[in-house]
């Protein structure tokens, strides 16, 4: 009798606790726990058939469907290519200035940060398709009008690298694209430079510094008129996210954490 009373008291308590969870995942797990206790209650009230069904549906299947649903909405999905110092994979973990900023921002929103490395060229397409919330990875150029650019967090410049041997007349005349531009992933580009492949690339400062550690005597280096600094980009119709992120960067700057983050990753 007492145990039934205990379970019955537990039910509203667990329901209340899961209702007031800030993280969606915690709330869903709370609901799963609620179903589990409810199944136990049914069992003690002589309804084993209902208990089995409640345990299977409520605690297992419904929880999984909720988790699948919030895997997209319960996290801040960021795409971008690697940039040494800003967004880099170090021993299986992401590290860098942008990672620190985004990590704090995701925590502020109660979301889980999820970063996926994609080729730099594809970031815009992925954002325009609405497959990600934020673009990162050393974005400095002007963007299509439908995407929204947050405030800058670090100044940068653009550098164009062209193989000396392969400079044709057309290439000489070609106007400098005022944006970071290279084929594929950044890690592939580094390998291409190490192999001395005649690739042409326009790089931002952080990427150029990383590339310049290899021998680039075979390339001509031009500094292009500097665009704006590094920023994040949000998907179409996500002005709210852009404004929140800009406000968050403002806040980091005013309390000095931004300087501290930059000094930690760019000594």
């Amino acid at each position, binding site marked *: 009798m007492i145990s039934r009373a205990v379970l019955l008291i537990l039910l509203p308590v667990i329901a209340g606790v899961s209702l007031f969870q800030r993280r969606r995942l915690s709330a869903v797990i709370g609901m799963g726990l609620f179903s589990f206790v409810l199944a136990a209650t049914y*069992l003690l009230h*002589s309804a084993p*058939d209902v*208990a089995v069904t409640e345990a299977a549906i409520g605690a297992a299947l419904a929880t999984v469907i909720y988790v699948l649903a919030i895997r*997209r909405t319960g996290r801040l999905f960021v795409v971008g290519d690697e940039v040494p110092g800003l967004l880099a994979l170090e021993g299986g973990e992401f590290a860098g200035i942008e990672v620190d900023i985004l990590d704090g921002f995701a925590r502020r929103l109660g979301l889980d940060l999820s970063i996926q490395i994609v080729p730099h060229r594809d970031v815009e397409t992925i954002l325009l398709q609405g497959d990600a919330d934020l673009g990162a990875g050393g974005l400095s150029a002007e963007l299509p009008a439908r995407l929204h650019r947050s405030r800058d967090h670090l100044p940068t410049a653009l550098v164009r690298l062209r193989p000396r041997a392969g400079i044709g007349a057309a290439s000489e005349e070609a106007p400098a694209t005022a944006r970071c531009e290279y084929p594929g992933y950044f890690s592939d580009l580094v390998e291409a430079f190490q192999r001395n492949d005649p690739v042409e690339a326009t790089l931002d400062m952080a990427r150029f510094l990383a590339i310049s550690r290899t021998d680039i005597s075979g390339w001509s280096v031009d500094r292009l008129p500097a665009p704006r600094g590094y920023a994040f980009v949000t998907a179409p119709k996500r002005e709210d996210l852009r404004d929140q992120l800009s406000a968050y960067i403002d806040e980091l700057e005013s309390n000095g954490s931004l300087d501290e983050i930059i000094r930690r990753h760019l000594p």
Partner: protein
Amino acid sequence: MKRIVRTVLAVTLSLVVCGIVIFDLTIPEGPPRPDDSELLAAKTGAPNLVSAIYLGARLYDTLFEILVFTVAVIGVRFYLLQRPSTARPDPIPESHVLQVSAQILYPLILILGLYLTCFGHLSPGGGFSGGVVAASGLLLCVMSIGVDTVYCRLSGAGIEQLEWALPMMIVAVCVLPLAFGRPILSNLLPAGQAGHVFGSLSILLLNVLIGLKVLIGSWMVLHTFIRHRGEI
């Protein structure tokens, strides 16, 4: 630190609930049975009175429950198939521990689902709960060997056609007694020795059909969710 405290709290709470259930699990007395319950159990050959009611005396209600489930599956597929598929080249890798434990657990859970379905007329269980338990086994299978592998194997077996054929088969089982000059929704097959697995063939047949229907329907809902809403 906070995480450890939470984990300890959750585990303690689960243990307390399990403890209460084990401590108090002497009941199945419940409210007194109505007088004709023994009669019903004998008539259908199913000692589990719940099964005897929802697949015997109240089969008409159950038919509409199956209809509701079918409509839910159609609804999920109708709305989610309009969304673009979210198939990504490299989905988030699950942790190795999860993968290995899922590999060990899923055959056991599938068998448990089969047991619940086939013994639903003797003990707690039945087609609905057995089907859902088997579907969660299938989900573990997805976690261990990947959604595409499972999907290819299952659609190779023609389960989508089966999903739409099963409600028809269930209705056919309910209507078929008419052909033998008996009232609609009555037991198609004669009741045998009560308490035996094949003691109530009619309920066993319905349970198996419903179990399959629920398993395939839940799998299709899960698969559509995975493909068009999230990833696994």
